[in-house]
């Protein structure tokens, strides 16, 4: 029995919507090594895999785990989307589940308890940051959901810029008034 002594434990994270359409998919490979499995680079295979997996898991009762196509898959169903954490067949299922729980919890925090298709798409930056802070190319970084969420930055509130240009109609009128006043003053002073 081969024992996985490397830190690379998670093979992929996938989120699909309630029709099986991909919202997020990242198949991990070690950055300085070639992909071991074909599925990591073959998009067609990935989509087929996701489609079949979705068919086996969506609204199939609260199962949370499935052995599928040579992978151990744990998943969490949100109202209209599913989050999958995928590992190898021999991987410790509870380890994968801890990752799943950590990530799900973090998503709930950053998306303000509304983990659904709409908010995943709207706050995509928060979602991808949360995933990136949980798993780094297959290595688990953290499984505590508060700790993960505490690494995810919110989007900047507004564009702070040095030169404030007001382009609304009123702003334009103000500028015009300002110019007119200055210009007429200059003209009156006779240059």
């Amino acid at each position, binding site marked *: 029995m081969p024992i996985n002594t490397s830190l690379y434990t998670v093979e992929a994270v996938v989120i699909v919507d309630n029709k099986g359409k991909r919202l997020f998919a990242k198949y991990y490979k070690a950055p300085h090594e070639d992909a071991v499995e074909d599925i990591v680079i073959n998009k067609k295979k990935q989509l087929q895999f996701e489609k079949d997996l979705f068919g086996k898991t969506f609204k199939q009762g609260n199962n949370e785990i*499935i052995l599928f196509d040579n992978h151990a898959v744990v998943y969490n169903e949100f109202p209209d989307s599913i989050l999958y954490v995928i590992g190898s067949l021999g991987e410790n299922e509870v380890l994968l589940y*801890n990752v799943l729980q950590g990530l799900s919890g973090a998503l709930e925090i*950053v998306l303000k308890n509304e983990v659904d298709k709409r908010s995943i798409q709207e706050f995509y930056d928060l979602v*991808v940051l949360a995933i990136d802070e949980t798993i780094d190319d297959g290595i688990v970084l953290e499984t505590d959901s508060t700790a993960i969420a505490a690494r995810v930055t919110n*989007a900047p509130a507004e*564009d702070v810029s040095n030169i404030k240009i007001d382009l609304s109609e009123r702003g334009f009128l103000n500028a015009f008034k300002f110019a007119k006043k200055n210009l007429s003053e200059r003209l009156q002073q006779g240059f």
Partner: protein
Amino acid sequence: MSTSTYKRFEDPESGSLPDKMTVYQECLQAFNASPIKAKKCRALLSRLLRLLYNGETFQKTEATNLFFSVSKLFHNADPSLRQLGYLAIKELCSISDDVLMITASIMKDIQGAEPVFKPDAIRTLSRVLDGSTIHAAERAMRNCIVDSNQAVCSAALVSTYHMLPVARDVVRRWANEAQEAISASKTLVRSPYTTHDNFGASARLPQSTYFHQYHALGLLYHLKKQDRMAMLKLIQQLTSRQSLQSSFAVLQLVRYVASMLQEDTSGQLAQQFWPLFNSWLNNKSEMVELDAAKVVLAPSSRFNQEQQLKAITTLQELLSVPRTVTRFSAVRLLSRVALADPEMVRACNSDLESLVNDPCRSISTYAITTLLKTGNAQSVDRLVKTIAGFMGDISDEFKVVVVEAVRTLTLKFPEKHSSLLVFLGDALRDEGGYNFKNSVIEAIFDIVKFVPDAREAALELFCEFIEDCEYTELAVRVLHLLGEYGPKAKKPSLYVRHIYNRVVLENSIVRSSAVIALSKFALVGDKQLTASIRILLQRCLQDVDDEVRDRTALSLRLVEGAELKSSTRARALLQPETRFSLAALEQQLCRYVRSKDKTSFSQAFDIKVVPRHTEEEILATEYKAKIAVEDDMASMSTQAKMETITSKNEAHILSTEGGRSSSKPVAASDLAARSNLLQQQYSQELSGIDEFQDYGLLLHSSGVVELTERETEFIVTAVKHVFKEHIVIQYNVENTLKDIQVEDVTVMTQLDTDDYKEETAVPAAMLKPDSSVCVYVSFSRPADHRMVLATMTNSLAYVSKDVDESTGEPASDDEGFPDEYQIEDLAITPGDFVTPCFTGSFTSSFDGLNNEEVAVYNLGRSEENPLAKVVKRLSQSMSMTPLEGSDMVDSSASHTLKLFGKSINGDKVAALVKLVSSSKGVMMKTQVRSSDSELAQMLANQWE
């Protein structure tokens, strides 16, 4: 693009992906603008990432443009923009050029003090650098590993880990920092940029999650794993003072210890480490408990039974936890253990029974199949009753799994056929879809074929079944079986009525197969029956369907011919005694068609060269294939394969016949062909070698014999191929050296008998580093085809040359020097002349053979010779089929093994081996009977 479509892509509600080129243009524009608008850019980055994470890719030039535009964002100081920027860079790295250019900017962030994006910067750096540029970052990385911020430390450790394959030597120098990181305390840092409303008051950020320990340990292991003493010291350090707080780190430690145990040849380590495992089996984390149990219960584990039972107890407790995944994992592990050692799992039976109704279907499936596996002859009845109780509540897919499991039971316990048959009969009467019915039919087919006592009862079930069978395919198969086995039953006339009813009532496909089945009854020899069958067949000549009429006419003609007795040919056609080996037929035909020599086409294809198998032989291979699946499952590799198949078709999770379930309706010959695949492959390889062209048919190939240790410079294995007048030894030589190429590889052999004469040797011209070749040596067998045992000493002779690392070729002027390499002796054993065979009733076959030989051996201490191992070794070395489930060892005290086979000369041979294990050692009494006295003697006296 019109404004309306453009708007659609803008709208996040629509859910469709943003347009790739639009995003590309906008990104370039916004990122290069001055000043940079943080909010807008972050939104754009988010859209870019959405494209990337949906699998969209960019051309290399586009990606590079994007990459450098993103790097422009570094002019803006907003941490939230920077963090997402790093993520984008990380994703774009692999598809862009010149990524090194960005190193300086990243290094600035790494040396800076902003905790928000510092870890992201570190992780991104490891994607940008490679083996040659890592030096630049060495100091910074070391500083980060000792940083008190947990996220920074973890990021540095993980990045270092990623760099291992390309920069091991550089990374090695950081081992001290990694070592310190394990015990150092690190804290998590919160920043105003990462505050989310939902943290609330209750969920406060923990001081530290100790995850850096996991990463540090992972890194350290890869730096130290070659050094056994250092690893032992590390393990001792980490376990003595409870210094590991992270359960991920503990889990990792369990795995490291496990892999040390695996490499440990002395067998001492297991006991030394037991106290550790004992504590891990009661760890606070379920995943640690599971992994520890997995190690203790591994097939090759050296833990004693008491210790293994402890692990079972741990798993038993995990069976009742609320977490689905934990229950699943525990029951999956138990079912794996049950394959190798059902006895052990029996303690959990009551817990498993309560899991049968688990809401998670995978769990209940595992529970049932495990229960069925742990069932012994005594408990089968009760088990089957339990299962029958819930058959009504479960789905079709799931029923298939259960039926498959029951089917293996029938093969294992033929004497329990009555209750199992009742169960299958009920299942057959139940409502159910095609797949379910099909699996039931398959199961009963097996009973008909392999359990002669139950044959008539099973056939009766079938008669009842075809009365109202809604599936044409199934009806046809059942009719065929009735035609095959019906005439051999005590009262053949019983079945005739049932079959003829089909002719009257069914569609044309069923009618035509019923006609063929009917015709077989005409050959029973009962005049009256033959006459009535002829009348029935004549009626069928009026059928509306031409296929039915054709078949009837043909059958009538053959039946008439057979009656005349002059024509044995008609009889042979109706009831063939032998069948062609389809795999061999295919191979011969292919060879004929592909022959390069045009003249060979002047001769017609000679069908006689294709081997024919008798019914018995086909059954043997089929039986073997079915039983073998179970055997193989103990080893992980096939387990994985099996689970692939099963998991694809969830219903079949762990169905013991996993290998077969994917292609259920295979013909017997096809199955036989599959188990013969290896033999076919050998024969193909051998026939491709000119020297062996005229040796004729390959009669038997032995299993693979290892002639060296697994870890030597040259790994040599041998396979013995027996031909009619020759014996060919195939040596597979593998060169594990990286810098030596050898040429002219031959094997020098010396036999201890004169009966074999060395004929030819086929050397291998060249053996590259890290590759393997085959070398053949052939001998002529004694002229009278006697089976002679012999032992040969072997040594490998070759010319070795050093290989230049840069070119992978030896220097052109290197003449090399000749060398020899001693390998172990190879024996020609009696098993080499025997092929496994099947018989329905072992006792009658055994009694029917007249030459008996008896031998008694003491095999030595029982600890070294567990019965299961002896049984496996015996059936392998004697090359015979274990029958009546006698290869499953139920008790550790005594066992009876029944073996059956056939020699290459066609003599049947049966062996009855009784094993008793006591304090004096394992006693073995072998009783061999055969029609060939010499063979019986050889087999009885062989025990190496």
